[in-house]
């Protein structure tokens, strides 16, 4: 417990809270700019079981923001390279590697083994799939996304608030939103949003504070502003209504 002593001191955590963290199972979907800090901070905090899911291999152009990887990881599968790094950080936790893409065929089976899903993916199909599957399985989902100097975070807790589709009912037309590859991405922005996602996941595990349920936190780095926008529950939502 010496490893966790600085957080056990916090009255909101204590030894009971640390037990909750050690017993928790969190799936990190996507090991890019968001998934990197999420996985590192959850492992450091002692989240007992971490699922690391990504089908890609590490590329040189990832390293400005995907801080879990090193130059020598180039070419390795992200899930394997991240698992190796996290085992060095915290050998006491269990890590499950998934070198695959989430799809209709596998998502239900995978998320059934976890208490919380953290969406760090980089595309709309995965985001809608994760939302729909988590709502149906009643799993909390911590959503985060970035675009250039901006970011968004919300927490979807099925039965207690709106879902992703309540706000964004349908995906935008294909090609209308440039990817990070096309639009660019600054590592620190992904770091800020990923760390907020990690914090929200830890709050959900501990049952402390007010998670961003029904709120979209909107971050703008150029203005250095954070704003919380209410997400109304759609009574006709195709997924959660």
């Amino acid at each position, binding site marked *: 417990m010496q490893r966790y002593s600085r957080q056990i001191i916090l009255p909101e955590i204590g030894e009971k809270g640390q037990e909750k963290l050690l017993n928790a199972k969190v799936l990190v979907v996507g090991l890019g700019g968001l998934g990197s800090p999420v996985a590192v901070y959850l492992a450091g905090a002692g989240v007992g079981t971490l699922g690391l899911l990504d089908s890609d291999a590490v590329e040189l152009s990832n390293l400005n923001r995907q801080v879990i990887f090193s130059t020598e990881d180039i070419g390795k599968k992200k899930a394997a390279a991240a698992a190796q790094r996290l085992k060095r950080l915290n050998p006491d936790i269990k890590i499950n590697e998934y070198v695959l893409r989430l799809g209709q065929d596998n998502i239900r089976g995978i998320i059934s083994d976890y208490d919380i899903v953290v969406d760090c993916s980089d595309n709309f199909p995965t985001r809608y799939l994760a939302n729909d599957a988590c709502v149906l399985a009643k799993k909390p989902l911590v959503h985060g996304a970035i675009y250039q100097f901006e970011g968004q975070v919300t927490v979807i807790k099925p039965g207690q608030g709106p879902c992703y589709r309540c706000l964004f009912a349908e995906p*935008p037309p294909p090609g209308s939103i440039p990817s990070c590859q096309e639009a660019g991405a600054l590592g620190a922005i992904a770091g800020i949003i990923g760390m907020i996602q990690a914090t929200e996941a830890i709050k959900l595990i501990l049952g402390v504070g007010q998670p961003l349920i029904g709120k979209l936190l909107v971050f703008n780095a150029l203005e250095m502003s954070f704003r919380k926008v209410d997400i109304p529950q759609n009574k006709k939502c195709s997924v959660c209504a």
Partner: protein
Amino acid sequence: MIEIVVNGNNRQMPPDASIANLISQLKVKPQVCVVEVNGEIVSRDEYCARYFKHGDQIEIIRFMAGG
């Protein structure tokens, strides 16, 4: 002119201004955002016919999927 609040910032608009006018001024394409007026999401097909009142709180929320 009327005053509305757009993403937390005050903005002057002509009294007959619609959501379509606002997002066009801001150079935001309607298919890449969601618009809330006073906490309610407005359907995209109403953007031309939805006019602002003084004091309306507008949120223009961009789609983003980067990770």
